């Protein structure tokens, strides 16, 4: 989930939810979902989210826990899913499964060839999200009228692109790599208790007198999701190397070091596979009753497990806030 060492150089400050009201957040859906999925699996009895035929839909329990926070603070989440089929129709499940199998095959090949970049990318696509989870997550979001965007590749890169295009105010991700994908403003800890953190790209660049390209080079030296860093090089050393030598190659040359696939990783951050071909509206009209039926009837999730979450969403829809008049 990105390199936490980037935190040492990132410009981060706490931001109260009050200041986020009315904003649109392009959420790295995989990253977000994964947090709730792991919490649910860890703390909830699996019988509450297992259908009679043995299919596990812990994602539905986790999402109903996580989504109210957006509604209560009047934040529109735009869920940006990692690359894959974009259509939500059930007859697409098959093709999505095929896609996943194809990723897994590619992953095997990449492992045989030792292609670190491809391995990291493919691992993130295939990680834990079963076709059922992929499908039911999107379907639940559809009932709640939460916009979904299908990224051509990394959800995080696509989310950053949406913010850069001015179609959302923030990227929502725990991942420090969001900075490297050029996310101007990233909200971290949307899944935690308390106020989120705002990670600001321009402030980060200004603090260290770097360009985005140089920041990417610094990150590659300390290590990213897609490469191991240079041994013994931490944030401070990487910064001074890039300051002194200008870019990754000169810095590596000066040290006599090498970063495998450095060029590809650099390309991946500098010119990520993203699209401007997306569409969503931010005026949400959730059908909570239909969402509840979908989760509790169609997928047989224990109603008690999700009652509070749905109530919180309902309440947020019927009660206005005084700030509307200030």
């Amino acid at each position, binding site marked *: 989930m990105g390199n936490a060492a980037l935190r040492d150089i990132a410009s981060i400050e706490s931001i*109260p939810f*009050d200041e986020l009201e009315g904003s649109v957040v392009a959420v790295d859906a995989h990253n977000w979902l994964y947090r709730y999925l792991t919490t649910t699996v860890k703390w909830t009895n699996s019988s509450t989210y297992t259908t009679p035929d043995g299919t596990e839909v812990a994602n539905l329990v986790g999402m109903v826990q996580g989504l109210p926070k957006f509604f*209560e603070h009047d934040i529109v989440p735009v869920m940006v899913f990692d690359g894959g089929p974009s259509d939500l129709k059930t007859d697409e499940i098959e093709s999505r499964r095929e896609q996943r199998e194809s990723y897994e095959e590619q992953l095997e090949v990449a492992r045989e060839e030792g292609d670190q970049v491809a391995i990291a990318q493919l691992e993130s696509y295939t990680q834990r999200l079963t076709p059922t989870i992929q499908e039911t997550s999107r379907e639940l979001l559809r009932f709640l009228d939460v916009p979904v965007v299908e990224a051509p590749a990394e959800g995080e890169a696509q989310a950053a692109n949406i913010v850069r295009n001015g179609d959302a105010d923030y990227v929502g991700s725990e991942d420090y790599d969001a900075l490297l994908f050029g996310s101007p403003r990233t909200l971290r800890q949307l899944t935690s208790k308390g106020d989120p953190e705002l990670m600001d790209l321009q402030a980060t660049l200004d603090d260290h007198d770097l360009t985005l390209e140089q920041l990417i080079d610094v990150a590659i030296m300390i290590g990213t999701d897609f490469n191991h860093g240079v041994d013994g090089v931490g944030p401070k050393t990487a910064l001074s190397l890039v300051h002194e030598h200008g870019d990754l190659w000169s810095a590596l040359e000066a040290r006599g070091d090498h970063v495998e696939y450095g060029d590809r990783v650099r390309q991946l951050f500098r010119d990520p596979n993203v699209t401007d071909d997306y569409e969503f509206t931010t005026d949400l009209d959730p059908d909570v009753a239909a969402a509840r039926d979908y989760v509790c009837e169609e997928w047989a999730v224990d109603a008690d497990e999700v009652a509070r979450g749905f109530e919180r969403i309902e309440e947020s*829809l*019927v*009660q*206005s*806030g*005084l*700030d*509307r*008049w*200030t």
Partner: protein
Amino acid sequence: MFKAIVSAETLSSALDSVSVLVEECKIHLEEDGLRIRAVDPANVGMVDLSLDADAFESYEADGGLIGVDLSRLEDIAGMAESGQLVQLELDEETRKLHAQIEGLEYTLALIDPDSIRQEPDIPDLDLPARVVLEGKDVNRAVTAADMVSDHIALGVDEAEEYFYVDAEGDTDDVHLELTADDLIDLEVGSAHSLFSLDYLKDMNKAIPADAEVAADLGEEFPIKMYFGFAEGQGQVTYMLAPRIQSD
């Protein structure tokens, strides 16, 4: 610098009207009296309170700001018997508030005001209708509505010139009409808004039965309720955001 003597009853009334919305608040210790403004965490209910220096037996302050845990301070005020006075003094060095009731001394640790939720901006409301009624009528309406529903509609019938209260439950309904004759005053205007009873019930608790309550209303607008306490030397304004009406 802050040093004041106040009747326990006045102090309790002031604190109670804030604690129905928040657990902690900032208190401005102005030269001419205390001022508190707070909004609940969901941003739905707001209180704006002032207690004039004249409401105190003695009062000295120079514009300081303290943060308090309301229930702790209420507990202290609650130790006093009817008619007893509470003496309050701020120790600037230790940032503690000393309270004395007869022989009882209580030292209250204060909260860093910066750690308390920011004070809200007062909504800019231009509400067309005004209903002035007694506190006991507010209580009657809220109590009746609470028997059947979790929300309440308040409005003014412009043609017939009356103020109405509607609560619709799953099976039972409550309806109350008050004409100008039943009210202290009625300024007719276009008004109909829905409110959460959870909030109104809490606010109602702090409204004295004999208080004159001025309620300003609009079409799907917040309600603004104004009333005095401590013989008019304390003033409370509540604002409550409406529930969104489904089409």
